[in-house]
């Protein structure tokens, strides 16, 4: 009973991590950039849903769609303005730029909303009680929506032309334009998809934990990054796997050990996993051309 309840908690938290990790992994797979602003885009998604729900008083689905579109547009503009000019520069400069963009977004929202805000609940709060285990409608929706989106993403990457172009770029960026594919366009689409997913994660997160502040992006951003790497960065299935693994470790530690050991055990386990599979669980070692 107790274990099953904790497992449901794992599924919920893991879905949120997985959605964000997917964005990281997609962008990395294509342009080898760790977009550290991703966690803050997640936070912006949460805030946009808060603003729309509070001032425009729209129901759930329009809020979700508006938030996704807005954050996707923001993500594409960031890519155009801050990352594209640095494609030829050393990788670290792009990473620092990403850090800067992230800090900028955080503090910008902080100027407008220095206090934590309460997000209006847009979903019916139904809780089902099955023999001692409580499952809420919200939890089911989070898990269901995340799995659905991951499936769609997988379909896009494996069975469409755009997806094929994405995979091609991640294998060899220089040849692709010679084949008549616009690299810029594909990268913009990738960013739009990745950040759109982060926005969905943000909206679901703000419904599950309705008190939001500008700092929620940082910690989740780093944790999702770790999920993406543990699963094998650049690998979409790896990101999903990584998300659930991290959530499982975190919640199981709390469930069975004194809760103060949580971070310690989580990260030590991570190090152990990485020392046995240094490229992540589903990752492939990239060949270094000598």
């Amino acid at each position, binding site marked *: 009973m*107790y274990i099953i*309840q*904790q497992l449901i*908690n794992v599924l*919920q*938290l893991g879905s949120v991590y997985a959605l964000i990790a997917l964005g990281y992994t997609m962008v990395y797979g294509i342009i080898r950039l760790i977009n550290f602003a991703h966690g803050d885009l997640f936070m912006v998604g949460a805030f946009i849903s808060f603003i729309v729900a509070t001032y425009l008083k729209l129901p759930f689905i329009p809020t979700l769609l508006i938030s996704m579109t807005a954050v996707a547009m923001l993500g594409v503009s960031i890519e155009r303005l801050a990352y594209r000019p640095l494609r030829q520069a050393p990788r670290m400069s792009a990473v620092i730029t990403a850090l800067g963009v992230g800090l900028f977004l955080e503090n910008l929202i*902080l100027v407008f909303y*220095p*206090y*934590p*805000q*309460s997000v209006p609940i847009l979903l019916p*709060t139904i*809780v089902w*009680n099955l023999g001692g285990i*409580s499952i*809420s409608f*919200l939890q089911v929706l989070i898990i269901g929506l995340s799995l659905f989106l991951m499936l769609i993403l997988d379909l896009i990457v494996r069975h469409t032309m755009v997806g094929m172009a994405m995979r091609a770029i991640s294998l060899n960026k220089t040849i692709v334009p010679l084949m008549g594919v616009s690299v810029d366009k594909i990268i913009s689409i990738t960013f739009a998809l990745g950040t759109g997913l982060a926005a969905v994660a943000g909206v679901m997160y703000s419904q599950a*934990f*309705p*008190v939001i*502040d500008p*700092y*929620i992006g940082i*910690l989740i951003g780093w944790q999702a990054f770790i999920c993406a790497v543990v699963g094998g960065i650049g690998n979409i299935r790896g990101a999903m796997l990584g998300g659930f693994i991290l959530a499982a470790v*975190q*919640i199981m530690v*709390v*469930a069975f050990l*004194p*809760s*103060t050991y*949580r*971070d310690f055990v989580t990260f030590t386990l991570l190090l152990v996993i990485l020392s046995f599979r240094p490229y992540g669980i589903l990752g492939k070692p990239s060949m270094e051309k000598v």
Partner: protein
Amino acid sequence: MRKTLVISLVAMLTIMSMVLVGCKSSAGLTIPIGVNAELTGDIPAVGASCKNAALMAVKEINDAGGLDIGGKKYTINLLIEDDGGKADQSVSVTQKLISQDNVVAVIGPNASRYALPAAAIAESSKVLMISPWSTNAQLTIDPKTRQPMKYVFRACFTDSFQGQVVAKFAMNTLGAKKAAVLYDVASDYNKGIADVFKATFESLGGQVVGFETYTTGDKDFSGQLTKIKQSNPDVIFLPNYYNEVPLQIQQAHRLGITVPFLGSDSWGSQELIKLGGKEVEGDYFSTHYAPDIATPVAKKFVAAYTTAYGSVPDDIAALTYDSFGLLFEALKTAGKVDRQAVRDAMAGIAHYEGVTGNLQFKEGSGDPIKSAVILQIKNGKFVYFATANP
């Protein structure tokens, strides 16, 4: 061209900084008093209340012509700094107020986790510090000598008293035999009061069946709450800040937990009701004063604050106002604007009638002896429930 632009910009800024930092303004007879408040960071509502009350207290005195010290009238120059919700920034801000702004005393910080480090600076720099709201017992005790500090005072009761109040309330009034606690292990205040509660509750014959922790910044408590639900307590104690409690209670309700929740004075902000809504209805917490059963002194303060800021003052505002009252009293008694004299005068105050009740200071201790009140959240408002005397 761009390079020269960048270099000249940087040079200009550096020169500007040296100049700005060097100048100090001095006009007329003024006393600089510093306020170290949590204006940004995780608990900005606390800092805002503190700032409002400070501005109000100083404005009252300055409008009346200034503070009468040793026959001369001084205007108060209030310097408000933000500790940004970070312990190291709290320390640097205190250092700045003491070394650069030469304040005669520092009021604040409020939260124990920012006040404790700042207190060490005040003590070693020999400058008077009054924390309006920090209830952690360690605040006024020197960690190296285990003796009470000479320069650090507070306007509120301590957690050694408050933890007992809540434990007794749980056992005697609510009739609880088993209690569970969920607290922030990374914060002095939460951890301190949780420990006192556990000790008292167990000494009264009760059983603490769950003693779970989380770290500041966590939002997901489902793991810990599921574990607590498993242990079947009669009441759950959440000595945490107003931005975390609504999430904790909400997640508990979603897991099917129906027992009442108890809180401590960190619940006292209106933000708690704004963020918690219906979830926090019916829960109790201990705090410093109740606006609806105010004494005449308190009623005057509540009216003035409501007129000035449009909202009922919370306990932080009331305590900050009292801190300033204590400081003005000490300055008047000292007769001169001198850090050591002010401190000695402050230590000599035996009894003070404040907005938050009667403060009695014992010789050699910076902790006042005061009563606490228990409030209940009814219809979205804080309503007085009971008083607890020391």
